[in-house]
């Protein structure tokens, strides 16, 4: 009699444990899924994502001029380079972070770089031959390459592409 009970209890026990484990598993999956909307809500909302790209009209920049545009809250330097400047940059390899000028532009007369010093994040000022960062003295050439000073890398390149002869869309390659 007691043996029967034990066997039945044993079967019940493992069935109960199985049910308990399955229920706990289903509940845990639910808790994990419930976290998704909350974590997702902290990601950029659709209006912020819409600002992920900025269209820029290049015709407002005369040859030899540079203009700064905001993109995703950061400054972007757009330089309309003269043929002399292009030649000078093509001839040089840069400084401590060597990179051919041709790789940094899509059309040689248009240089598009993110205007944030790769040292500690200040915005460099335009000079004749490139940029000078006021914070710690990093010097960049007219290709945005680091020439001297503490910055480790050339000025970063944003993804962009030409949507028309004189228009670029920054934010998408």
């Amino acid at each position, binding site marked *: 009699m007691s043996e029967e009970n034990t066997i039945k209890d044993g079967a*019940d026990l493992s069935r*109960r444990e199985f*049910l308990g484990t399955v*229920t706990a598993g*289903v509940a845990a999956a639910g808790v994990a899924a419930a976290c998704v909307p909350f974590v997702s809500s902290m990601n950029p909302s659709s*209006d912020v994502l819409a*600002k992920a790209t900025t269209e820029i009209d290049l015709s407002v920049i005369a040859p030899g001029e540079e203009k700064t545009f905001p993109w995703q809250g950061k400054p972007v330097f757009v330089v309309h380079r003269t043929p002399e400047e292009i030649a000078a940059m093509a001839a040089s390899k840069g400084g401590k972070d060597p990179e051919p000028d041709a790789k940094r532009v899509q059309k040689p007369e248009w240089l598009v770089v993110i205007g944030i010093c790769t040292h500690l994040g200040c915005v460099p000022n335009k000079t004749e031959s490139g940029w000078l960062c006021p914070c710690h003295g990093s010097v960049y050439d007219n290709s945005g390459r680091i020439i001297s000073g503490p910055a480790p890398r050339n000025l970063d390149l944003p993804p962009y592409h030409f949507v028309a002869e004189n228009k670029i869309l920054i934010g998408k390659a």
Partner: protein
Amino acid sequence: MSNNKLFGLIFCLMFSARSAQADEAQLKRGAHVAVEVCNTCHSLKYLKYSDFLKLGFSKAEVDAMRGTKGMADPLISQMAPADELAMFSTVPPDLSLMAKARDGGANYIYAMITGFYTDAKGQTANHVFPGIKMPDVFMIAQADAAGRQGIEQKARDVSAFLEWASDPQAEERKTLGRYVIGYFVFLTVLLYFLKKKIWKRLD
């Protein structure tokens, strides 16, 4: 309430297909009416032109609708508020939430648009909103039978569109709801059997 009735109620709430959900074609027609007629005087400022892409319009179609405005720009009224105040002695209300701001929602809007008539004095009045300052933009008060049918269709379309505009995520919400509640029904059934099993120990 018996278990069967309870499941039936839950099922009905979750799967009632004709819950004022309009098809894509109607919403697109309604969008055109809203942009071409209503937007002249009313803003729909919580809608952006890019939202029309969600209705199935192509980028080219949206570009045609927005003219010189940007994709991310809100739909503000084409008339300036000051001019509207002068012309109508009131600024026409924003329509983004109108389907929620009135009891009866889309049905109210439909009734109001089609509710214009010419009264005994020859003035235009409205059955649903006496003293309304909005003109009879579709001229339904003077329409003949055939004309009236066309206007009623436009009114249906734009009411459906405004209902969408007040709650663009309605479909997404209901779809997700079916999965979430389905999950909880499943989990609660498991919990029920687990509870019964655990409490059997007491006997």
